[in-house]
C-alpha cells in the first residue's frame, strides 16, 4: 500500500530494533472487571504508546480478551479509568469507540459471513463514509467519487494482504486462516489509530503464522499504526512486540520489553507452572 505515510512521531523512546515509539496514546488505570463472582481483571494499569506493538500474553482465562473488550467498549469495567489521547474516556458503546479510530478483530472471528471478502472489508470503511442518504440515492457526483475512493482503499488492502483470489468469495466458505486475514483487512480498512488483535494467529499453521506476523509488522512499520496484540505463542510475541503485559488470573504479573519479561521469575512460574494449550 503506497499511501501517504504520516510523519513519524517525535520519538520519546526507541526500541532496540530502531523503531520509534511515541507518547502515550492510551492509558488504563486500575481496571477491574467482575462478572458476578468471577474477577476477570484485577486492578490492572498499563499504557500503550503511539506506534508500538504492545502484546498482552498469559495463560487461558487470564483475562486478556476481557481487557481488549474493555478497551473496545464491549465490556464496561467495574472500576478504573480508560484514558485515550490525553482525555478520560467516559463509558462508551463499542460503535462509538470504533468511530474514535479503534478497530479490532475477535478471538472467535466475527465476520459478515454472507458477504464477500470485498464487502466485508468495505464495511470497515463505514465510519469513513460521508455522503448523505439522498445524494447516494440519486448517485450524485460527490457520492460516486466517494464510493470509488473507498473502493480504491479497499483494493489496496486486498493487495497488501494478498487475498486478491478470494475477493468475491463469501467469507463463510473460506478456511479459518483466510477468514482471520479478511478480519484483519476489515479492521485495517478503518485506518485506525489503534488496532486491537485478539489472537490473530490462533489455529494457524506455521506458514500462515509467518504471513500474519509479516502483515502485522508491515502495518506497524508502514503506517505507524499502534497495535495491541494478544498472543498465546511466546515465540511470536518475542519477535513482534515492543513491550509486553503479562496477565495471570486477572492480575498483571509482568510489564516490559520481551527479553526482560521472559526472564522474570513470576512469568516463568505462571507460564511453565500452569497448564495451558
Amino acid at each position, binding site marked *: 500500500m503506497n499511501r501517504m505515510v504520516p510523519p513519524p512521531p517525535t520519538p520519546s523512546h526507541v526500541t532496540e530494533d530502531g523503531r520509534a515509539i511515541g507518547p502515550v496514546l492510551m492509558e488504563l488505570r486500575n481496571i477491574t472487571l467482575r462478572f458476578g463472582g468471577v474477577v476477570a481483571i484485577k486492578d490492572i494499569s498499563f499504557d500503550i504508546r503511539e506506534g508500538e506493538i504492545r502484546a498482552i500474553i498469559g495463560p487461558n482465562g487470564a483475562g486478556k480478551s476481557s481487557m481488549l473488550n474493555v478497551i*473496545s467498549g464491549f465490556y464496561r469495567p467495574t472500576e478504573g479509568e480508560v484514558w485515550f489521547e490525553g482525555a478520560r474516556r467516559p463509558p462508551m458503546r*463499542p*460503535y462509538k469507540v470504533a468511530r474514535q479510530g479503534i478497530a479490532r478483530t475477535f478471538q472467535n472471528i*466475527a465476520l459478515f459471513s454472507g*458477504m464477500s471478502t470485498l464487502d466485508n472489508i468495505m464495511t470497515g470503511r*463505514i465510519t469513513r463514509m460521508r455522503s448523505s*442518504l439522498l445524494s447516494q440515492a440519486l*448517485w450524485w457526483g460527490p457520492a460516486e467519487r466517494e464510493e470509488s475512493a473507498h473502493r480504491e482503499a479497499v483494493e489496496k488492502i486486498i493487495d497488501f494482504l494478498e487475498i486478491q483470489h478470494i475477493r468475491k468469495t463469501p467469507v463463510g466458505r473460506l478456511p479459518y486462516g483466510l477468514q482471520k486475514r479478511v478480519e484483519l483487512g476489515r479492521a485495517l480498512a478503518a485506518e485506525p489509530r489503534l488496532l486491537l488483535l485478539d489472537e490473530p494467529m490462533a489455529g494457524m499453521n506455521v506458514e500462515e503464522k509467518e504471513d500474519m506476523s509479516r502483515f502485522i509488522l508491515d502495518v506497524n512499520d508502514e503506517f505507524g499504526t499502534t497495535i495491541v496484540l494478544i498472543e498465546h505463542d511466546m515465540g511470536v510475541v518475542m519477535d513482534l512486540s515492543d513491550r509486553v503485559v503479562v496477565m495471570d488470573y486477572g492480575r498483571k504479573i509482568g510489564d516490559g520489553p520481551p527479553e526482560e519479561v521472559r526472564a522474570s521469575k513470576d512469568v516463568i512460574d505462571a507460564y511453565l507452572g500452569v497448564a495451558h494449550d
Partner: protein
Amino acid sequence: MTDLLYAVEVMINGLMAGVLYALVALGFVLIFKASGIFNYAQGVLALFAALTLVGLQEGQVPFAHLINAALGTDLHHFGWQLPAVVAIVLTVGVMVLLAIAIERLILKHLVNQAPIILFMATIGLAYFLEGFGDIMWGADIKTLDVGLPQGGSAWLEQATAGWGSDEFYGFFIDRLDIVATLVAAVLVISLTLFSQFSKQGRALRAVADDHQAALSVGISLRFIWVLVWSIAGIVALVAGIMWGAKSGVQFSLSLIALKALPVLMLGGFTSIPGAIVGGLIIGVGEKLFEFTVGPMIGGATENWFAYVLALVFLVFRPQGLFGERIIERV
C-alpha cells in the same frame, strides 16, 4: 380456448393479489433479517398507518373521543382536507416517530433477550397499537381515497375482447391492482438499491449478518433498528393504502398479516426475493386453485389453500425457497 384465457385472467389477478401479499411479507422479512424478531405487529402496523393516513387527510382531530369525554367538548374534525401527497408524507413522519418510540420504549430494554421474548413483545405491541389506533382515530370503518384509480381497466378489457372466440369478453383486471404492482415494483427496486449502495443500507446488511462485527466497525445497532422499523412502517403504509383502498380501513386490514405467514414459509424469513416470489406463488396458486378445484368442493378455498401449500412446501424445503440453509450443529 376461452377457458384457457379465463385461466390466464385468473392467473394475472392472482399475480396482482400476490404482489400485495409480498408487500406485507416484505415488512416481516426486513425486521427479521436485521434483528431476528418475528414482528407479530406488522399487520397492525399497516392498519395503524392506513388509519393515520385517513385521519390526517380528512383533518380528523386525534384522540377526539378522549378529549371530548374529558373536557365535555364536541371536537371531531379540524375542518380541513389535506391533499393526498401531503397526508402520505405526514404519515411517513408518524411511522418514523413510531419506530423511534418502539426502539426507545421496547427494543432498547430487550437487547440480548431470546427471540421468543422479543416475539412476545411484538404481540403486546400489536394489541397496544390496535387500541391506540382506535382511541386516536375512532373505531368506525373508514374509506381511504388517495386518488388511486379503481375498477376494471376498460382499455384492457376492450383490447382483449373477442380473443380466441366471441365468447371471451376480454381480460378484467382491476386498475388498482395494476397500480399496486407498479408501486410494489418501485418500492422493491428502491429498497434493493438502498440496501446495496448506500452507507445505511450497507450498515443494515451488516447488522443483519452479525451484531458484534457490526458494532466493531462503528455501526449503532439502535440507529439501525429505528431505520428498519421505519422502513417496515413505510412498507406497511403502502400495503395499508392498497388494501385500504380496496376494502376500506377497518380492523380486518390487520389480518392481511395472516396472508403473509404462508408467504414467509414459502419464501424464507430472510429473503427479500423470497418474499416477492413467495407472494406471487401464493397469489396465483390460490386463485387458480379456487378457479379449477374450488367449484368441485364448494369454493372458499382461498382461506386455507395458502397454508396447505406452505405446509406441503415446508416438508420438502424447511428453509423456504430462498432462505439460508438451516444447518444443524452437532
